[in-house]
């Protein structure tokens, strides 16, 4: 039986997810432009795996398939996986990661809306722990044409060294650590000098910075559409820039600039698309600030001092852990109970 209210605003989960997907398009376009169409293959692979995994789980659990598949949330997860993984990982890695994300991290917790962890980021962390070598091969912009990308994705033997290097983020950190070492030939060089190579662009990695800009654009559109609020992207960027800037100001020879941090790796994607996932993120305004600021600081810490190339994924998971406590302790005072 239906009770009041009898009228509703026209809004649906599907619409929300669709707009998130649309907002990813500029970033993807830049990605294709600079790094080749291989990413599209990965997106297709991940999407197919996500839909298949979701459908299978829904069938097993006896839930209506058409209804839940049409919410598009699985596709969003799939796209995020494809966009955070190196574009030339073998197909089985993408598929396994996506299935893990959908089946274990999402559906075992009850499906949409109930998973405490971001499925895409959990899959990323699992894979980078399990296959650190494969997950660290990033081709430089324009390095590989489409056919060799296809061959890497679907082909057999890989000649790791010949293909690619690390991400600019990782490379710069390695170089900076080397520069601190008196035995290295790079000793004494500063970040700005180290960044003078062909792999770097104006702000971050060559090409990567444009992709980041694309995501920024999409993110701003989401903000304008009121799908997300400013709290999470704002606090994340600020915290990342502030923590990077602090150490950069103290020891410019040892750390990359805040701008580099913002423009590289998964920072923009994380700020606007990953951390803003409402299911696994904090929900109160103050909680969002805390959550995103924590993620920003952790991202920087892991990038600068940790063992993994990028910190966004781990930072997201770590902050996901804290979400219940953050939400619980940042509830806004309710009507009539505010202190004036």
């Amino acid at each position, binding site marked *: 039986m239906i009770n009041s209210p009898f009228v509703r605003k026209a809004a649906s989960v599907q619409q929300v997810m669709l707009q998130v997907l649309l907002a990813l398009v500029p970033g993807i376009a830049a990605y294709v432009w600079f790094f080749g169409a291989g990413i599209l293959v990965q997106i297709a692979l991940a999407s197919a795996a996500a839909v298949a995994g979701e459908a299978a789980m829904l069938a097993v659990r006896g839930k*209506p398939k*058409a*209804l839940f598949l049409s919410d598009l949330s699985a596709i969003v997860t799939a796209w995020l996986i494809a966009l955070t993984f190196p574009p030339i990982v073998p197909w089985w890695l993408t598929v396994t990661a996506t299935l893990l994300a959908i089946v274990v991290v999402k559906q075992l917790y009850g499906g949409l809306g109930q998973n405490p962890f971001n499925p895409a980021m959990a899959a990323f962390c699992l894979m980078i722990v399990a296959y650190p070598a494969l997950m660290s091969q990033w081709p430089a912009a324009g390095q590989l044409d489409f056919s060799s990308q296809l061959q890497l994705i679907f082909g057999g033997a890989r000649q790791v060294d010949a293909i690619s290097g690390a991400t600019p983020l990782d490379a710069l950190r390695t170089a900076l650590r080397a520069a601190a070492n008196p035995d290295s030939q790079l000793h004494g060089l500063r970040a700005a000098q180290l960044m003078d190579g062909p792999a770097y662009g104006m702000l971050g990695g060559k090409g990567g910075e444009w992709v980041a800009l694309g995501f920024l654009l999409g993110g701003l559109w989401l903000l304008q559409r009121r799908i997300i609020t400013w709290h999470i992207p704002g606090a994340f960027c600020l915290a990342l820039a502030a923590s990077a800037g602090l150490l950069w100001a103290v020891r410019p020879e040892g750390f990359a600039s805040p701008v580099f941090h913002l423009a590289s790796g998964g920072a923009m994607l994380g700020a606007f698309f990953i951390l803003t996932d409402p299911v696994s993120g904090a929900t109160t305004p103050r909680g969002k600030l805390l959550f995103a600021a924590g993620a920003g600081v952790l991202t920087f810490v892991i990038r600068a001092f940790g063992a993994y190339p990028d910190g966004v994924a781990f930072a997201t998971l770590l902050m996901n852990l804290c979400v219940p406590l953050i939400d619980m302790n940042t509830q806004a005072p309710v009507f009539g109970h505010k202190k004036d």
Partner: protein
Amino acid sequence: MLTALLVMTAVALVLGALLGYASLKFKVEGDPLVEKIDAILPQTQCGQCGFPGCRPYATAIASGEADINQCPPGGEEGIRKLADLLGREFKSLSEEHGVEKPKSVAVIDENTCIGCTLCIQACPVDAIVGAAKQLHTVVAGECTGCELCIAPCPVDCIAMEPIVDTLDTWKWRYPVIQIKQAA
């Protein structure tokens, strides 16, 4: 070997003394647990659990003599609360102790009652009023629905009637999940 023995003995002695002192210093009187269990029990005092009242049952649970699934009036929810409180696993209601029924009150058929006072004595909460050879009646507000008055009645004039909803007791139902129908 001797050293080892000596060392262990010394350690044991010191720690033993410490423990002994602590157990005297921090002695606890009474069992606060019984109160908490009793607070969960529905207080029908029906004895279906096999104990003469709710508090004895609570005491038995606290001391581990009784299981948590022996209270039909408390129902599944009561068992769940007890399981929560005691950190035990939930189990379904023990069948030998009865089944969960809708809440009812006893009603005395005033034309049949002979005023024998047997039910008055059986009632654990003094919810039946009347005196010898006087007609008895149940004070519905006080009746816990324990059914203890039914068996003693020599003329079978007591019946259980489910409580009827009024505007004050009417409840909104759990919203029906419509996902299934839509598929």
